[in-house]
């Protein structure tokens, strides 16, 4: 078994290879503006580090968000394309579940990532393997009471310490954690999400002024 996991739903562009037992190689770069440029070279690097070729991959794992859309789609379309060429399954996992898993927290807690526009994507967890309910997108102050007293993991928590006084790391998503979680789920035979984006927000249905202008002026 060889899992290739990618996640581009957060500022981290993160890629990992997992052999079913442990992470074999991993690359994580934090650069919210360059997901498109960084992902494929990272895949290439991780495979080279492991001394493997892409066709050795038996399963693809992809973080489906929630996350700001433009970057999120880079990981999803990359995983879907690899899946099509290699003829291997593409398993979707909630990005927040990767951060939860990486935290290793045994009791109740929450995960929050930066949703921009002064909001966070967040979800509650029973423990690091078990999410309690669907992820949401809210202003930190609006969920501070509900999460009060709980540790809150992730960059979205660390960004708003006044709302989340118990904010803690890990700050960024790691594909290694996502892959380890996926390996557990595969071994248990439990279900994955479809490899399609969790957008949460409705799109801005606005036609920009001077729409469709693609000619450089």
């Amino acid at each position, binding site marked *: 078994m060889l899992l290739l996991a990618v996640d581009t739903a957060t500022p981290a562009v993160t890629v990992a290879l997992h052999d079913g037992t442990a992470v074999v190689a991993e690359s994580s770069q934090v650069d919210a*503006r360059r997901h498109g440029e960084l992902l494929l070279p990272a895949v290439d690097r991780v495979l080279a580090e492991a001394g493997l070729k892409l066709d050795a991959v038996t399963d693809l794992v992809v973080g489906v968000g929630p996350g700001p859309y433009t970057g999120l*789609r880079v990981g999803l*379309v990359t995983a879907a394309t690899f899946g099509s060429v290699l003829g291997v399954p593409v398993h979707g996992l909630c990005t927040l579940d990767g951060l939860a898993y990486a935290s290793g927290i045994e009791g109740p807690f929450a995960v929050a990532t930066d949703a921009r526009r002064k909001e966070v994507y967040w979800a509650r967890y029973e423990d690091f393997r078990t999410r309690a309910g669907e992820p949401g997108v809210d202003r930190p102050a609006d969920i501070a009471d509900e999460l009060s007293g709980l540790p809150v993991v992730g960059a979205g928590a660390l960004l708003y310490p006044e709302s989340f006084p118990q904010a803690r790391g890990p700050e960024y998503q790691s594909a290694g954690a996502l892959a380890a979680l996926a390996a557990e789920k595969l071994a248990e035979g439990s279900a994955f999400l479809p490899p399609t984006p969790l957008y949460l927000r409705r799109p801005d249905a606005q036609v920009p002024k001077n729409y469709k202008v693609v000619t450089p002026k």
Partner: protein
Amino acid sequence: MADEPLVLGIETSCDETGVGIVRGTTLLADAIASSVDTHARFGGVVPEFASRAHLEAMVPTIERALKTAGISAKDLDGIAVTAGPGLAGALLVGVSAAKAYAYALNKPLYGVNHLASHICVDQLEHGPLPEPTMALLVSGGHSSLLLAPDITSDVRPMGATIDDAAGEAFDKIARVLDLGFPGGPVIDRLAKEGDPKAIAFPRGLTGSRDPAYDFSFSGLKTAVARWIEAKRNAGEEVPVRDVAASFQEAVVDVLTRKAVRACKDEGVDHLMIGGGVAANSRLRALAQERCERAGIRLRVPRPGLCTDNGAMVAALGAEMVARNRPASDLELSADSSLPVTEPHVPGEAHAHSHDHDHVHEVSKKNLYS
């Protein structure tokens, strides 16, 4: 010919997810998924809807194209993709897919220019492009006059719109007349039953001191809207067919006049017309008439190849392979404002001058700020 390059091309710069496959100048497949119906109710392309639709359609459209072409992906000589210009988020889906595809198949990747692709697509219809070719590109996104001595390496801007694109003017007038989106086809249809000389709408930038090859459609758009408003305010019925015909005539008159003049001035004996507005029947007819009179050969691909599609990207990609142009690398950016003077985006090792500030535009929310 079996040794002509077999190339798959991916286009996602606006609202069409296009995947084409060509062998040299022969079209093997042209698969398209369009999100135009989603945009129709907003009267224009909504970038976020377009990006979402590209992600959903990308892999199924690639698979459909391969099936239609009846080839194995392993036999491809290269993967081409529109690197720009276009909507940043939309381009990024296609560029990411093309990179993954090229990497997984271990094939060279060619990031190419959308505008050059619009010109090169005519090779699939009328054979190799004459060198140089003059090209008039008109669509909802572009109105440009380009001189292409070598479509893979030398494309020169002669003129462009200084405000609205021609297709945009069609959409806006259709909106004023409550005809829906997109406006091009319906105006073309109604204009056939109207009098193009009924109303004398202005011809933008045609004065003797105006730039010879630039276009302006904003003033025309306003003039038409005011004319309609005045009729409505006077309680009179708007003669929709005459308005459509007279407006359309004003647009195609300027486009063809300037294109023919550019050919004459540059001594070019071929004019190519591409882009969605090239499907307009009056534009085709008037261009034919004026080109014949000037001794210029007109090349206009069939309407399906004029609008955005993957075949045009594959056509330019095949030309890149045939002429041994350097491939792009895996860091290739989606560049929403890729200049028309860059027909393709070679990798770092080959780039003569690489402007990093310019290249990293993918995270721009959209083009309209």
